[in-house]
């Protein structure tokens, strides 16, 4: 280290004074880099000014604390910052302008806590609420797939514990590079997709299974841009009595650290996540990946639930990114307090850690509770009974100052308000006009081969070999499972029955359309929202709340920021239009590697309710002779479709969302399900009508015939292949018994719908084209083979 900038203090442990008072701009940037702060010049200057006023230099622990708190990961600078558009207009906070605005304007009475806490909370039934959170863990998973993914699950479960909720279900959505990616094309430092895939899948399974939380919903998506930037979304749903949602800490309360011990694992995780990945990431950032111990978290969960039920603590939060530094800081800030810490009290995995390491370590399975003095012993005993360590590490104070002591010496003193007012970001956005073309090729006579090819494409094919390694049954409350039908077709949503004395269910679904993002970030976002909501509705869900999780490239690059702005604008419009408020979200930016940026990817998670789980509908066909209806209109929208992809095109005509139609279709489906007319329902997504019909058939083992001439289409659609493979949003396939024909038709009459086929008893799958000749003719076994073979 440079003598001039770093001055070792004469204390009985390792601590440095950072000479920023004498540092010039070059030095400041050097300090930021060498200490792994990931702060820019403006931020470093702000810090220097602060310490100039204090007439002293900061210590390393102080500077690290600021670095953690101001990191993109913890503070979401991009979403809170100022964005200058090409026409000179300004957006003051993407978050406030789009995401939170929809929620505020919708003002749903069933939203209990949105965006404020570790997880969003909505009302469920009686005194019960549902807490939901979805996180990303991309950067760690790229370096160490097993640990990265496992701790992603562990972290999101703690978010749910952090609102006093009992975790009852997990979700995971994963994005990998093609598994057959050419080894010779991999740049140094990038791991092969197959290696990452194996590790991530095992990591997720190991954590969720070991903790006894069912993994009930998810998706796996393959894209070339994920080779360098693996995408790992981890979600968790929890249940809590709303009367036990206690957050009223005050000065004098103890800060109790509970759970695993603190070590050097997970140092600089958040600043690492706020940088692009490079060849050196493995070497430099390996310690940033934490080590997972699900059993510790299971015990921690038991103790937390016990403390909650006895009402002994005044607040709780998890230790995630930034470790103690952000948990303590945020707790103090939230309750308008200061904090006084004795860092020696933190139980360590090994001695000789520097104070700054203890304070920012992201070691897993730790929670921070605030506990009034009179309850301290009781709380600590509860943890002891579960064989979990819990220790008071200090107290909340009334002075808005963070004071840290170590071995009797003060090592940090920072004003909490300063810590939470980083300089506002100003960034410019640019909208790039892509030069895209709609392809033209002659219509194939026979489309059987195309259907089989799409069924076996990695994004459509069965994920059973992966999903079976996750326990989706533990807790015994999974009513609609990831698979349905004799042959394990893909369910649209999962349904959980969380309360023993109620039939009310939670419906969990998601939507993700990265390939549309290559054409339009706006319609990609709109489509993801539509897909998540229609998946929910197809199973019987309604009253949907949404979560947004952005995975984007470096926001300092104007074009990446431009597409982010567009996606956020769509979030506002369609959240509001569907009357489905956002309740929580998270962004992961800086997903760039030597291979380039990640394809802009937005995961929308939808949480609905179903009044009676016994009315839930699965997607497998139920009985020969039943009628097949389509609800929703089909447009010539093949841009980004699977069909174009197998033909080697991207195209331009990305699926749009027509709010009026979409709402009508979804309402019609919900009504028909409630009235008991629907035996099976499946949403149309990748691969369009052809794939949805094939999935319903192959799941059940029944055959199916479809008459394309009956399908309601927009005027310009005259090709069999386009009708079959268009991926227009807001559409459903519905199986209806003959006896409900009239009743069903009158129920859905407001929406585009048509009788387009029937269930066959003979196991053949036939699609009759516009001129009544078969354009697809296959046996169910063929469909199953194509669909199950790849993974």
């Amino acid at each position, binding site marked *: 280290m440079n003598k001039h900038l770093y001055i070792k203090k004469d204390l009985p442990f390792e601590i440095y004074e950072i000479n920023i008072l004498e540092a010039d701009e070059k030095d400041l940037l050097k300090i930021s880099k060498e200490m792994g702060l990931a702060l820019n010049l403006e931020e470093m200057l702000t810090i220097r000014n602060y310490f100039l006023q204090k007439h002293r230099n900061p210590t390393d622990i102080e500077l690290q604390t600021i670095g953690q708190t101001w990191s993109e990961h913890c503070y979401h600078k991009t979403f809170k910052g100022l964005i200058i558009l090409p026409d000179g207009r300004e957006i003051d906070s993407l978050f406030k302008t789009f995401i939170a605005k929809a929620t505020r304007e919708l003002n749903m009475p069933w939203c209990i806590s949105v965006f404020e806490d570790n997880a969003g909370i909505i009302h469920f039934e009686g005194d019960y609420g549902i807490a939901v959170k979805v996180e990303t863990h991309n950067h760690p998973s790229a370096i160490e797939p097993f640990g990265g993914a496992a701790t992603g699950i562990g972290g999101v479960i703690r978010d749910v514990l952090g609102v006093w909720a009992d975790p009852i279900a997990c979700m995971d959505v994963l994005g990998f590079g093609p598994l057959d990616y050419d080894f010779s094309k991999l740049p140094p430092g990038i791991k092969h997709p197959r290696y990452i895939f194996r590790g991530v899948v095992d990591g997720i399974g190991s954590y969720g*299974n070991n903790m006894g939380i069912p993994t009930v919903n998810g998706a796996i998506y393959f894209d070339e841009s994920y080779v360098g930037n693996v995408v790992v979304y981890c979600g968790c749903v929890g249940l809590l009595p709303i009367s036990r949602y206690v957050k009223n800490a005050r000065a004098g309360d103890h800060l109790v650290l509970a759970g695993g011990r603190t070590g050097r694992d997970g140092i600089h995780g958040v600043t690492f996540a706020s940088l692009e990945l490079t060849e050196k990431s493995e070497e430099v950032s390996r310690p940033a990946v934490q080590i997972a111990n699900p059993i510790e978290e299971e015990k921690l969960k038991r103790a937390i639930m016990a403390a909650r039920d006895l009402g002994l603590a005044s607040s709780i939060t998890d230790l995630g990114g930034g470790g103690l530094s952000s948990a303590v800081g945020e707790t103090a800030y939230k309750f308008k307090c200061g904090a006084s810490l004795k860092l020696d009290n933190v139980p360590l995995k090994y001695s000789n850690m520097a104070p700054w390491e203890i304070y920012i370590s992201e070691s897993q399975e730790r929670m921070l509770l605030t506990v009034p003095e009179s309850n301290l012993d009781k709380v600590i005993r509860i943890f002891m*009974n579960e064989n979990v360590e819990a220790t008071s590490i200090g107290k909340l104070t009334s002075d808005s100052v963070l004071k840290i002591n170590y071995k009797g010496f003060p090592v940090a003193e920072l004003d909490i308000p300063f810590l939470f007012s980083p300089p506002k970001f100003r960034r410019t956005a640019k909208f790039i006009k892509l030069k895209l073309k709609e392809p033209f090729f002659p219509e194939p006579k026979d489309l059987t081969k195309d259907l089989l090819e799409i069924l076996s494409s990695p994004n459509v094919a069965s994920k059973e070999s992966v999903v079976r390694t996750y326990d989706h049954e533990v*807790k*015994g409350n999974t009513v609609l499972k990831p698979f349905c039908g004799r042959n394990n077709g893909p369910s649209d949503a999962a349904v959980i029955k969380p309360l023993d004395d109620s039939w009310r269910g939670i419906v969990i679904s998601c939507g993700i359309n990265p390939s549309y993002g290559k054409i339009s970030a706006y319609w990609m976002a709109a489509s993801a929202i539509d897909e998540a909501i229609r998946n929910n509705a197809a199973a019987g869900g309604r009253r949907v709340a949404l979560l947004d999780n952005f995975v984007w490239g470096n926001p300092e690059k104007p074009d990446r920021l431009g597409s982010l702005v567009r996606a956020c604008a769509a979030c506002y419009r369609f959240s509001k239009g569907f009357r489905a408020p956002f309740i929580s979200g998270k962004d992961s930016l800086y997903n760039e590697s030597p291979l380039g940026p990640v394809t802009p990817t937005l995961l929308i998670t939808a949480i609905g309710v179903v009044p009676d789980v016994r009315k839930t*509908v699965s997607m497998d066909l139920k009985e020969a002779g039943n009628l097949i209806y389509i609800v929703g209109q089909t447009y010539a929208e093949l841009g980004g479709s699977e069909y174009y992809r197998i033909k080697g095109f991207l195209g331009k005509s990305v699926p749009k969302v027509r709010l009026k139609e979409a709402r009508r279709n979804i309402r019609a489906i919900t009504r028909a399900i409630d009235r008991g007319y629907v035996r099976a329902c499946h949403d149309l997504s990748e691969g369009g009508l052809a794939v949805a019909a094939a999935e319903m058939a192959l799941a059940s083992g029944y055959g199916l015939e479809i008459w394309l001439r009956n399908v309601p289409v927009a005027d310009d659609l005259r090709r069999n292949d386009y009708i079959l493979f268009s991926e227009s949003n807001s559409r459903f396939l519905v199986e209806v018994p003959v006896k409900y024909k009239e009743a069903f038709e009158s129920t859905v009459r407001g929406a585009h719908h048509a009788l387009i086929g029937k269930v066959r008893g003979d196991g053949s799958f036939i699609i009759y084209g516009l001129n009544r000749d078969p354009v697809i003719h296959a046996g169910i076994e063929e469909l199953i083979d194509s669909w199950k073979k790849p993974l």
Partner: protein
Amino acid sequence: MRREEIRVCIVRVGGTNCDAETKRSFEDLGVKAFVYHFNEVSQGIDLLDYHILVFPGGFAYGDYVRAGVIFAKNVMARMGKKIIRFVDEGKPILGICNGFQMLVESGLLPGINGVSEHPEAALATNIPIGYRCKWVYLRHENNGKCVFTRLIPKGRVLRIPISHAEGRFLLPRDREKEILNKLLENDQIVLRYCSENGEYAEGRYPDNPNGSFHDIAGICNPEGTVFGLMPHPERAYYGWQLPDWTRIGKPPRYGDGKMIFESVVQYVMRKF
């Protein structure tokens, strides 16, 4: 003894995670079920005040060694004598999944010559290898010895889900035949993996989901009072838990798992 007087003790340690649904299944039958941390069972409460002892599913202590082994050693070291007395009184013990692994590791099962000092069988890594969560078919094989399946006719095919990575039932290879004959003679074989129609899986995947010897999914001790099984009956207790109830249109009231809980409750009612 009346139903409501029956007390079930469900033991958990760090990593146990199927205790709540197991408790719920017993309570639905009108008996009293309690979940206790092993710390309480080994120090506070008296096991002999209870009539049924259950080791539920999960990953006790993380199963970082061999599944169930740490839990088994801990239990036998700290309260082995009490457990043996519990068994000697004819009180039933149930081990589900991780609990089955624990019963085998503790020597309580198969227990051909009483509780053995060393395990006499094993639940080894699945073949094909890997964790697997799925519904399987099981054929009831017991002639009436096992108190957990007395209400189930012999030959009846049950459907219950499994979820494990280590469930391959094995006997010492050199004495495989001999011990198997002993198990048959003692009527200790309770459940075997089979096809939907009830044909034995004969080791074939996927009907036999883990490569278990003789398709064994569950066994009891020679007295029929200690029962361990890899499948999870508490996840097949209610009809709405079935994987295909949507095909029927409306879920039936109960699933096949219920009969296991009901059998043992009726046994206790009659015996005590």
